[in-house]
């Protein structure tokens, strides 16, 4: 059996000579495979690769744009902040100056007012004093005369002389008192 197979085989088949049926089958099968894969699969893969590259590059570009925008915003905020700071400083200075002005104003007014009050008081005092002095002078004269007439027991006829004596006495009294 085995000998038959071996001998028969060598005469029927030569492995280096292709079978034409297999060439046909191989060509057709491989052609079908090539057609399907090269038409429907690999071009789409190429497209997907391209889309992926685009997506990545687009992403980078978008990120760069966003970065630039963020930087610009940051600059803007910084500028605004600096501006706000100077504004605040200016407002503070103004307020301080205003406060100083107002203080001076109030102080002046108060001083004026106090001066006025003091002056009025003084004036009033002087007037009252003058009144009192005048009243006292009249009364002191009468009392002194009454006293003197009682003591001396005589009425002084000469009114003018009597008045002069009293006045002189009083002014002497005043000048010594003031001293």
């Amino acid at each position, binding site marked *: 059996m085995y000998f038959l197979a071996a001998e028969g085989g060598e005469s029927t088949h030569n492995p280096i000579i292709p079978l034409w049926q297999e060439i046909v089958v191989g060509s057709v099968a491989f052609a079908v495979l090539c057609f399907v*894969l090269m038409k*429907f699969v690999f071009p*789409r893969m190429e497209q997907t690769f391209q889309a992926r590259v685009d997506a990545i590059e687009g992403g980078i570009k978008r990120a760069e744009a966003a970065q630039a925008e963020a930087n610009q915003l940051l600059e803007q905020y910084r500028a605004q902040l600096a501006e706000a700071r100077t504004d605040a400083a200016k407002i503070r200075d103004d307020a301080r100056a205003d406060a100083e002005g107002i203080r001076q104003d109030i102080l002046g007014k108060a001083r004026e007012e106090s001066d006025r009050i003091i002056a009025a008081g003084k004036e009033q005092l002087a007037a009252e004093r003058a009144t009192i002095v005048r009243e006292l002078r009249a009364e002191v004269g009468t009392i002194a005369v009454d006293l003197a007439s009682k003591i001396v027991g005589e009425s002084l006829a000469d009114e003018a002389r009597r008045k002069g004596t009293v006045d002189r006495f009083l002014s002497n009294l005043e000048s010594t008192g003031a001293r």
Partner: protein
Amino acid sequence: MFGQANVLAAGQAAFPPSVEDFYLPSILPWGAHDSYWFTKITAMVWVAVGILIIFFLATYRKPQLVPTKKQWLAESIYGFVRNNIAVDMIGHRGVRFAPYFTTLFCFVLLTNFFAIVPLFQISPNSHIAFPAVLAVISYVMFNYVGIRHHGFVKYFKNSLIPPAPWYILPLLIPIEFFSTFLVRPFSLAVRLFANMFAGHMLLLVFTLGGFAMLSANAWLAPVSVLSWVMTIALTFLEFLVICLQAYVFTVLTASYVQGALADEH
């Protein structure tokens, strides 16, 4: 003239294996020995084509920017051939050849791989018809591409006349012609065919050898076991050869296309 399967079923090993073991009986009509239209070999070719078409169409039906696992796998295969073979060998012009190279690579790899898949266990590429078809396509392709790129006369001038002193040219031109236009398709086809043929033959020798020794003498059983262990080891070697030959076939095709497109020698 029984098939190898019958022999094994009868408990008797046909040893040593012969070329006939590569020509299994036809499936349709069942058991015929002179009909080659529908055999295990051609069926495997169709299965390979079917698997590849279904795999790629299924994984790439709805491609997304952020790939799913399967899509990533399909893209990796294409990306490998595109970047590591087509672009590396040919440059940016190689991108347009990448679809064909990938198809070629996948087809050769899968049909080779059948050599060690249980139940398939033989590669269609151990029949020279299939490597021959692929080699003829590569041959036609690189010549067509070269003629289209350079024009007919300039292409042959570029290919046949190396930059050498004039007195050596009478020797060099026949050699160039022989190596470029005659040997290339044969070497391409025979390299793949012979590797797969020899691989299958090796596995047969060690597998059937084990049976042969066992049936010859029961005391040889340990040697039979060693023989089968060798089969397993050789299967790993075969896997290496499978991948390597698929890669080599694609790289050589790319290299021929690159040579045809090159401006200078």
